[in-house]
């Protein structure tokens, strides 16, 4: 049984060479639930929503000016390969907010004394995925994880859901900021003025909440439920981005980047969802729906399945899913209780690690092992994970990154890991003895074959690369 390795890698983010011995793995994990700090030091200096929103507006307004300036400023080597739009973007402040947040995320992951909750932060950010594909979203993605996800991963699922849905990154990513009640006072007024292009409903966010965040695809909901939910969500938008039909109705005291509810955009009347009538007016309507969705049995099953998969296998054991779903229903979606049920379950504690680490997991565990605090320049972090095939906060789809072995186990990806391990090992050189590092990092998963291969390496650097490319270290 590789319980030490599983605790450190399946549940945690990999062992640092000088970490104290784990001891009892289940106690080690449970203790982290209490020690969790929702605001790690690494994220402290990052920009707030107002700064990010202002940066976006400036980017958009200055685009013309930047176009002119770009023609005069000599290009860096990196910029030469970019298309012009990306080049302008890369010079803008919103891109800088993204770069700084990715670097902070990596620093937090390497530094954290509570790697199990830190993994859960990554898990939930991917469950409620936003993707930095849209210019409006890029600057906000880091803030989203730090302000909507981190504070809520130990509380109720409903609070996590509401925080994620109401964050500007989500509202902008899934087009909520452009969705208006078809019969709202605002739309009616536009229509009465004879404007043929009357503002209307956008179902994107409503559908993805039902399909991805709560009930799960092809479960209990219908198209009518999607439409009703989309109507209930109208009125929610983001202040200070200076564009779109609702902006003139924005309260003058609204902070840029703040989530606001604008009543004249909201669809009036009751909505019926999953057979239940929601009569509350205004913002309370959507919130009531969200809180009911959060404790629905289909949601319990969906969350239980995804969590069980993340800690066992592509097809998680049915008994574990049942147990987690039951716990979720019993506690009304208490997440800490769910994690305790997971730790206490036998299914994750298999004989040997079988899941393939994602590029993020693998890189973080390597850097933790060596206690390398950072990777040179901040912009290297984002570029490196893009190269490894898992750009940070950019899964390209609201479904997030897939969580299966086949997603990450590819031949080119494997070669890239070996190359990166070689580069890092070359920088470490003979300052670390891989024969001493291997038993600390691989613990009870160190096989005689890997131990021999490392011992026979023709240089310490090659031994280190061998360790990080070893079959066990690639897995969790």
């Amino acid at each position: 049984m590789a319980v030490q390795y599983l605790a450190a890698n399946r549940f945690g983010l990999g062992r640092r060479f000088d970490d104290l011995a784990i001891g009892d793995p289940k106690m080690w994990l449970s203790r982290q639930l209490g020690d969790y700090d929702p605001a790690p030091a690494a994220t402290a200096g990052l920009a707030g929503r107002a700064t990010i929103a202002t940066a976006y507006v400036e980017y958009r307004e200055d685009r013309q000016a930047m176009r002119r300036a770009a023609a005069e400023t000599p290009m860096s080597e990196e910029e030469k390969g970019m298309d012009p739009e990306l080049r302008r973007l890369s010079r803008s402040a919103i891109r800088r907010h993204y770069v700084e947040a990715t670097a902070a995320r990596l620093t937090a992951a390497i530094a954290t004394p509570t790697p199990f909750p830190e993994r859960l932060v990554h898990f939930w950010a991917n469950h409620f995925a936003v993707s930095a594909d849209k210019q409006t979203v890029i600057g906000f993605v880091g803030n989203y994880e730090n302000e909507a996800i981190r504070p809520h991963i130990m509380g109720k699922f409903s609070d996590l859901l509401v925080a994620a849905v109401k964050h500007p990154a989500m509202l902008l990513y899934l087009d909520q900021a452009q969705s208006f009640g078809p019969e709202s006072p605002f739309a009616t007024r536009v229509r009465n003025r004879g404007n043929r292009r009357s503002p209307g409903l956008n179902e994107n966010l409503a559908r993805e909440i039902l399909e991805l965040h709560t009930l799960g695809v092809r479960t209990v909901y219908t198209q009518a439920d999607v439409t009703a939910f989309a109507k209930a969500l109208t009125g929610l938008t983001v202040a200070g981005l200076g564009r779109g039909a609702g902006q003139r109705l924005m309260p003058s005291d609204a902070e840029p980047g703040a989530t606001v509810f604008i009543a004249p955009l909201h669809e009036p009347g009751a909505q019926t969802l999953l057979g239940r009538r929601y009569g509350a007016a205004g913002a309370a309507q959507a919130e009531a729906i969200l809180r009911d969705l959060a404790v629905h049995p289909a949601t319990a099953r969906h969350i239980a399945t995804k969590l069980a998969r993340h800690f066992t296998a592509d097809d998680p054991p049915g008994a574990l899913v049942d147990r987690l779903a039951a716990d979720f229903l019993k506690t009304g979606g208490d997440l800490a209780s769910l994690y305790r049920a997971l730790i206490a379950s036998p299914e994750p504690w298999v004989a040997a690690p079988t899941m393939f680490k994602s590029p993020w997991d693998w890189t973080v565990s390597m850097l933790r092992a060596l206690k390398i605090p950072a990777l040179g320049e901040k912009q290297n972090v984002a570029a490196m994970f893009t190269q490894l095939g898992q750009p940070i906060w950019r899964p390209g789809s609201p479904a997030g990154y897939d969580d299966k072995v086949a997603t990450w186990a590819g031949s080119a990806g494997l070669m890239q890991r070996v190359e990166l391990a070689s580069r890092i090992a070359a920088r470490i050189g003979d300052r670390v003895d891989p024969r001493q590092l291997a038993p600390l990092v691989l613990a009870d998963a160190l096989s005689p074959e890997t131990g021999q291969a490392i011992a026979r390496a023709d240089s310490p650097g090659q031994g280190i690369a061998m360790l990080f490319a070893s079959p066990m270290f690639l897995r969790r």
Partner: protein
Amino acid sequence: MILSRRSIILSGITVAAAGTLPVFAYAAAATPRRLVFIIQRGAADGLATVAPTGDPAFAAARRTLADETASGAKLDTMFTLHPALATTAGLYSGQQAHFAHAVATAYRDRSHFDGQNMLEGGGSRPYGRSDGWVGRLLTLLPTAERAAIAIAPAVPLALRGTVQVGTYAPSRLPQADGDLIAGLSALYAEDPLLHPLWDSAVKTQELAGDIGGNNGRNGADLGKLAASLMLPADGARVMMVETGGWDTHSGQRGRLNAQLRGLDQLIGALQSGLGPAWNDTLVIVATEFGRTVEVNGTGGTDHGTASTAMLLGGSLALGGKVSADWPGLTPAERLDGRDLRPTRSLESVIAAAVAHHYALDPKRVMTTLYPDA
């Protein structure tokens, strides 16, 4: 006399660094003629490389990719060169480039490996020969001009034959990592997931000269390396350069642009690296087959038949010309309704160019290079 398999850091290669390599033990060449065969593995799209913009059916068939070549050099009333091939366009206007269009080997199916085997072996069917056309050409050359080398981890089929040939393997990995790769191969041997992945990763790395990467500079580095191996008096006279990454099934616009930019820089670095020797150098660029006339659903093109071959160098017979017996692009004019129809054999193009370059009897060259034709 043979350079053993070695790894070097491709991105850091310079002429000076290459100068520290073991040198060939050949006497100075009696003539300074040199030959470079650049293989484009993966089926390069001849219709985007040398676009028949004057064909009325072109724009409709290529739809979203039709303007890929819009800003490229006009070669004549019919053809436009891809804009990424800027250096090559310069060579063309100086009568130092020739494009042969609608050409194909005798191979008519659409498998990469079979197609490459035919292109290199020069046989009449896949795996019909165990030696290659360059290898057979060497037997026609004076001893002093036979020094041949492939920038590849093993001797490619095209160079195999009775004359011994060297290889030189560039790799982005530091040299020590050849051992790391071997060590990992052993470590993964019993692992059902990692073994096949690693096997394929190592093969791909060996085969694919990633010329498109690093903004084309990989191509330039490769060209510099090739020139540095051919320039010395006792250096190689015949060379084969591997390039991969031409299989543009999706997102062709950006990928092909990067590939061609890499190829262009490779050619440019070769020309400038060889200096005056360029005037007596023939470069042949060819691929196993072309790509479909129509764009597919993912902004790319699928396996086709005829493509374009390039001849470059300082003393071409027909520099500054595109030669084509143009078949047309309407569905009825295509092969199987989908591919550019081949109207001339690639084998005859290669044989004619080689015969001219070495002032050899064209018939003898043809029967030696392509004995089964």
